[in-house]
């Protein structure tokens, strides 16, 4: 990464983070997903009477998921099997906002031509744009993650008198699956923004095409979380490989002429 690329990353990143209203609106959906929803789950589990049907359901769960009480088992399941899938949605939805305007936003502000006159190849500009969105979505993810564990663990201590231990899968999700899937989504959205004629067009294709497709893949991960951490690791690595390949090849067919059209 050279100075020029990091200058673009800093500039794009500042463009969003300096705009407090935009940045705080970026945090609303993540906080809803990882703070409000889990709190509702945990309070409901606490208030739920002992139900034989739920006991039957828990009996067929893997032994590793079972804890000392039904409340703890269910809360543990929420933390370890439901929340990771919610958590994966955060960087994707965050990225869709910034990445969708990566190229077309510059085009609308008449700054794209100036950017293309910098001594960088198109691939380098593309990677810088992807990195800026990626860093922003990772920042929002980390803020959400910290908020989620702070709230969920506090609730667990108050309601159940104990901390909920996150499984090893969380580490794989945070360190590998989440960055890899976000990178795939961001690369596709930034590429779309290079083709689009307006920010609206780019956001629509991101929100209605790319994000639902990625979320469909994310949905599959909640099943995989139940199976095996090694499988999760393998799939995470596969996603990372796809992301790297996309990042390398996505700008292959683009030319200055096509970008400025």
């Amino acid at each position: 990464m050279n100075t020029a690329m990091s200058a673009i990353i800093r500039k794009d990143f500042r463009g969003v983070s300096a705009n407090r209203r935009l940045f705080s609106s970026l945090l609303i959906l993540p906080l809803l997903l990882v703070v409000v929803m889990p709190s509702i789950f945990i309070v409901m589990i606490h208030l739920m009477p002992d139900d034989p049907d739920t006991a039957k359901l828990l009996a067929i769960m893997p032994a590793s998921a079972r804890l000392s009480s039904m409340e703890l088992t269910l809360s543990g399941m929420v933390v370890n099997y439901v929340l990771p899938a919610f958590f994966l949605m955060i960087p994707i939805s965050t990225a869709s906002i910034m990445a969708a305007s990566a190229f077309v936003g510059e085009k609308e502000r008449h700054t794209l031509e100036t950017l293309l006159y910098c001594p960088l190849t198109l691939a380098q500009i593309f990677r810088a744009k992807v990195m800026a969105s990626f860093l922003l979505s990772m920042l929002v993810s980390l803020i959400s993650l910290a908020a989620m564990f702070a709230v969920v663990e506090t609730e667990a201590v108050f309601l159940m008198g104990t901390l909920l231990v996150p499984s090893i899968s969380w580490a794989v999700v945070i360190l590998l699956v989440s960055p890899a899937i976000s990178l795939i989504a961001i690369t596709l959205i930034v590429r779309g923004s290079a083709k689009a004629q307006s920010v609206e067009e780019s956001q629509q294709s991101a929100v209605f095409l790319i994000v639902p497709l990625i979320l469909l893949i994310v949905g599959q991960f909640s099943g995989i979380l139940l199976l095996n951490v090694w499988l999760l690791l393998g799939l995470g690595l596969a996603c990372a490989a796809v992301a790297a390949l996309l990042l390398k090849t996505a700008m292959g067919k683009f030319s200055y002429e096509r970008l400025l059209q």
Partner: protein
Amino acid sequence: MEAVMIHSLSKTYPSGKQALKDLSLSIGGGEVFGFLGPNGAGKTTTVKLLTGVLTPTAGSCSVMGIDPARQPEKAHLVSGIVTEHAQMYDNLTGMENLLFYAAAFGLPRQEGKARAESLLRELDLTDAKDRRLASYSTGMRQRLSLARALIHRPDVLFLDEPTSGLDPESAQNVNQMIHGLARREGITVFLCTHQLRYAQEICTRYGLIEQGSLLAAGTLEELRGRLFAAKTLRIRAANVLGNPNLTECKLKRRRDDEFEAEIRENEEIPALIRTLVEGGGDIYSVSLEEPSLEDIYFALTDKRNDSRDNRKGEAR
């Protein structure tokens, strides 16, 4: 080495429009080259080809020996580019914009800051440096664009209509700045404009283009020599009509005391004046009227239209 070389360059857009036809030019280091022509003549296309933003349909070009079609990023390192569509960020201040472009051109932070400050001073923008670009007037924006294009000390400066949309005073300021910067920093300037009067003030050589074809190129003297055989000498004088050698002077009376003579060389002037004075004439003023760039431009376009009409006539 020539700073800019253009060899048989042609560009046809995907729509089928042929914007540039077989253009050949070369521009030496330190020249201020005026590339002149009406809107849609192919000036912007030429700049885009020279900066690697467009790829040529045929022919080739180079900037400081670098082919912009093959290595645009390297060509950008030696070029500063100001075009109408190359704007900067409204949400950043003038200084922040310059610091961003300095970093994008690989300048270390301290050096970029020092360079930005000196350019802002030279372009009379120091007072506005901490204001957001959104509050800048068109003239200030153009000056900041000039600072942005010069931030990395380019060898060649491409300016596409740098004074368009500016009032005459701001346009003159920008032109004087371009002139001053080119002279001080020894930069080669490729200036596209249709404002011929401004071009004549700052350019050292010219290329005139129309409908994608180069009509002529050369210094003002060369172009004058090529198109106009004679120059007009205007004389305000009294008591010259009785001069016996008046016919020899080829003097034509325009008004009461105003006369005109057609001359070929400046060396003819002293002899002519001497004849008038020796014949008892009183000379009040003598001015040599040489064809302006505008005259040259219209003479060239008329010539082209005439030859086109002739061709059509012959075809009929």
